[in-house]
């Protein structure tokens, strides 16, 4: 068994692409080996700014010889058949082997040297390598067909054992020579093999293992902060990024002028992180300290004094700019920025941001006045929440504007006010410079101009949740604005036909839809979908059904990812006619619990049997039920009695949204159904009996469907 070492040395690979590159290298390498029938005992990949490497341990020296056998005609077959077979295999009669009167062509494929396989595999991998962005370079690039790599590729080391695996790609010949750190050890190094690779490069001031570099950055940065009596604000993203920017990481702690701490801490942290890739520190009181940790790529001859000084200066310039924006912004009231919002086009078909603000403010107020968003979470469950059936909408009747509910009051005013201010920070200097601070800065500015804290909070958090895993707002004012903003975006873009398609979702409507679903769900909001979407579409129906389906699709995806069985989701969603997400999910969760019980499994089996018979007999939908005119068999009578008892119970429970009880009621059908199938013949010779029994099964199906469409459930 022999180890293989591959090193692809290039100019600086973007940090964000390194993890993906390791993964792809391992995947492509395994695929190439598999093609040749080889596999390695263990494959390790490394990535850093200037090299991508792979070590495969325990490869055989050659692939195994394979003997291929092709069956031919019988030895006694007519000559034409034999000739045909010889032509096909390219052999002569003498080369065939006869066994039990049948001719076989046997070809021996000898094993190939692994080095030879690798010499073909590596160029194939390099040529097919899927970089997110790649480029051409140098004289070779006179042809657009020239090789592409993420940045110019300089050298390739390929060693099988101690031997170079010889190949050439676009003028680069594989070898055993690399170079160390750009500044500390730029000379050539002759590599001896996979087992010494990491150590040889360590000697040349290159840590090839990204995890080792990350650990040094993480530990040393924390230690430096601790030595200064501070605590590092941990940031694994920064650790990985700095590990991707350095071959020999040397964290260094620096200070900035305390005066800059007047700037909101998020701004300082963002400036430090995004622009400079620095960590920030907290002092013992939990507040941001005037210290940063940068990660150098050299052991400087002066211990890093110049580097710290330089980095400190750059950060100071950045913070000075940030403070300038912050102080300038504070001079203008958010209300006075409105004329500027009128100049920003939200979308050419949907007017300006000021128009959007207008719509969102009205919608936020409406959500409160309708009792959808209320002051206390407990009251929300009793809210109106009476969904209009889809048929109302399909028939073209647009619901009249609801009468102003008595509720609302202060909450409605606050929601409207917050929505009115929510987008003003888009035209502030700070958000112009750091778009990712949208909302947050608005919150600061709103608080600074003396708005109600609930309004400031809503301005700050109304973009939430931004993607999965982000906090979902729970403060009532925030919920109203966050929901109204997202409902408006989805509804308005749907109205003008700009729906996401395939991978294209330029307005991030999927994220908005998921945000809507999570906000409704986590706050237990009783939000009747059709009236709400119609409201968001300006009291007209321009595809509200589509919009609801779109949001529900997002919800399904989210539930699937949360581990809810997709067939159960389908079983509930298939019932249709439901426009209340909270109720839908309660049902799905109850169903998930139920089908894993014994009762659930058996009821499902009974249901499936009943449904199959009905399907075979072409009995669809509800059947008119009339009690049998003949004397029913005992098992038949039992089932009728059980249904008579269970149906109202289940219906009652569903109405009360108590899906556990509804399912318990259905579970009582399990034994009677089993017995019915054991004792009673559905297809009786007497057509009257047959009709009654089919109708009875239809009752079973209908009863089960009050909870979920069990035909969609697998198993």
């Amino acid at each position, binding site marked *: 068994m022999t180890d293989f070492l591959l090193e692809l040395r290039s*100019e600086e690979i973007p940090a964000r692409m390194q993890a993906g590159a390791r993964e792809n290298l391992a995947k492509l390498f395994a695929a190439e080996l598999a093609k040749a029938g080889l596999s390695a005992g263990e494959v390790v990949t490394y990535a850093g700014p200037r090299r991508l490497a792979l070590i495969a341990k325990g490869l055989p020296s050659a692939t195994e010889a394979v003997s291929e056998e092709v069956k031919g005609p019988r030895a006694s077959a007519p000559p034409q058949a034999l000739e045909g077979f010889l032509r096909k295999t390219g052999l002569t009669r003498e080369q065939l082997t006869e066994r039990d009167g049948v001719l076989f062509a046997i070809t021996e494929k000898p094993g190939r040297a692994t080095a030879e396989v690798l010499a073909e595999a590596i160029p194939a991998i390099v040529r097919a390598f899927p970089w997110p962005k790649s480029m*051409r370079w*140098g004289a070779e690039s006179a042809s657009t067909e020239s090789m592409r790599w993420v940045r*110019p590729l300089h050298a390739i080391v390929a060693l099988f054992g101690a031997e170079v695996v010889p190949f050439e790609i676009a003028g680069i010949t594989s070898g055993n020579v690399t170079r160390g750190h750009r500044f500390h050890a730029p000379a050539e190094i002759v590599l001896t093999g996979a087992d010494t690779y990491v150590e040889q490069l360590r000697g040349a001031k290159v840590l090839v293992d990204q995890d080792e570099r990350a650990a040094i950055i993480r530990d040393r940065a924390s230690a430096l902060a601790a030595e200064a009596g501070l605590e590092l604000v941990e940031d694994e993203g920064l650790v990985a990024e700095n590990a991707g*920017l350095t071959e020999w990481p040397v964290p260094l702690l620096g200070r900035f002028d305390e005066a800059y701490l007047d700037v909101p801490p998020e701004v300082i942290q963002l400036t430090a992180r995004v622009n400079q890739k620095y960590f920030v520190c907290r002092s013992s009181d939990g507040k941001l300290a005037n210290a940063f940790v940068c990660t150098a790529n050299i052991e400087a001859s002066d211990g890093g004094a*110049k580097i710290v000084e*330089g980095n400190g200066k750059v950060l100071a*310039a950045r913070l000075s700019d940030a403070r300038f924006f912050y102080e300038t912004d504070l001079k203008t009231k958010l209300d006075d920025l409105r004329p500027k919002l009128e100049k920003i086009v939200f979308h*050419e078909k949907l007017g300006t941001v000021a128009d959007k603000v207008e719509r969102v403010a009205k919608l936020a107020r409406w959500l409160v006045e309708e009792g959808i968003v209320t002051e206390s979470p407990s009251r929300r469950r009793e809210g109106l929440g009476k969904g209009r059936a889809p048929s109302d909408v399909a028939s073209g009747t647009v619901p009249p504007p609801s009468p102003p509910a008595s509720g609302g009051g202060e909450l409605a005013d606050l929601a409207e006010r917050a929505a009115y201010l929510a987008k003003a920070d888009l035209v502030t200097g700070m958000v112009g410079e750091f778009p990712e601070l949208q909302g947050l800065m608005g919150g600061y500015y709103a608080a600074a101009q003396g708005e109600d804290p609930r309004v400031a909070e809503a301005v700050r958090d109304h973009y939430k949740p931004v993607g999965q895993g982000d906090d979902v707002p729970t403060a009532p004012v925030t919920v109203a604005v966050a929901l109204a903003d997202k409902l408006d975006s989805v509804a308005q873009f749907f109205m003008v036909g700009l729906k996401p398609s395939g991978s294209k979702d330029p307005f991030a409507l999927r994220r908005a839809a998921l945000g809507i679903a999570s906000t409704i769900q986590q706050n237990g909001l009783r939000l009747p979908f059709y009236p709400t979407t119609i409201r968001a579409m300006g009291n007209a129906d321009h595809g509200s059904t589509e919009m609801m389906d779109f949001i529900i699709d997002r919800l399904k995806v989210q539930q699937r990812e949360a581990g809810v069985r997709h067939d159960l989701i389908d079983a509930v969603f298939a019932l249709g006619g439901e426009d209340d997400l909270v109720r839908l999910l309660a049902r799905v969760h109850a169903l998930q619990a139920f089908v894993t019980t014994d009762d659930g499994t058996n009821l499902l089996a009974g249901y499936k049997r009943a449904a199959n018979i009905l399907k075979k007999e072409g009995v669809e939908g509800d059947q008119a039920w009339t009690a049998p005119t003949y004397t029913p068999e005992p098992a038949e009578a039992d089932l009728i009695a059980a249904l008579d008892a269970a149906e109202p119970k289940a219906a009652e429970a569903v109405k009360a949204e108590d899906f556990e009880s509804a399912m318990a009621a259905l579970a009582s059908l399990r034994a009677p159904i089993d017995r019915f199938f054991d004792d009673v013949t559905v297809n009786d010779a007497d057509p009257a009996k047959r009709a009654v029994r089919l109708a009875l099964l239809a009752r079973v199906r209908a009863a089960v469907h009050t909870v979920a469409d069990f035909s969609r459930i697998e198993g």
Partner: protein
Amino acid sequence: MILTLHDYWSERGCVILQPYDMEMGAGTFHPATTLRALGPDSWNAAFVQPCRRPTDGRYGENPNRLQHYYQYQVILKPSPADLQDLYLGSLAAIGVDMAKHDIRFVEDDWESPTLGAWGLGWEVWCDGMEVTQFTYFQQMGGYDMKPVAGELTYGLERLAMYIQDVDNVYDLRFNDAGVSYGDVFLENEKQMSTWNFEVADTETLFDAFRKAAAECERCLEAKLPIPAYEQAIKASHTFNLLQARGVISVAERQAYMGRVRDLAKGACGAWMDKNGWAA
């Protein structure tokens, strides 16, 4: 510093050019970069180019933001295999000690929507400060580079601040006789910021934009790519001024940029045709 860079790049086979006598937002607009980057011929040049970015004006109040500043441009086609080493050599030549300073190549892909150009490369950091834009052009004027050119753009003021160890651009020493950068340029920054943001007559500018665009097209019809390109530069700068005046809405912005791009692409195309190069 400029002389050192001239010497350095001249010794490495670059022709040393003078600034182009037109207003432009970056050295990349210099025809010695844009037009000469196209086509198969080898081309190595270095030059200083004054740049005007009206929206970056800060009335002389920001320590490192200027509406008028200088770039040092190097263009090498095809991109040499040791371009990174050549570049580091030039830093050493102007006095950057790499045993004490942390030089880093940080991903920064370059794109000029108004030139229909893009490339991959880095911003080069010296102790966390961006001192150079380093780009391998992949497309120019919408045409694939055949071969690829390497472009280095040094921010001269930044490098000077760094080497002279000053925090404010206006404190840079222009000579050893006590003349500072501020003595030379502060008043210019104040007045030009005021003109760019507040005074420039927008009707005149709109008119100038239309005329430059029309003239560019006339030149293209006459198969004169260089004058056509000059008009495209003029239109581009006029557009930048209109932006600084805040009279171009977000929606219109795209349309204007598209217009400039079409002009620049037209000029590049005509240049390719004139030289008989296939796309």
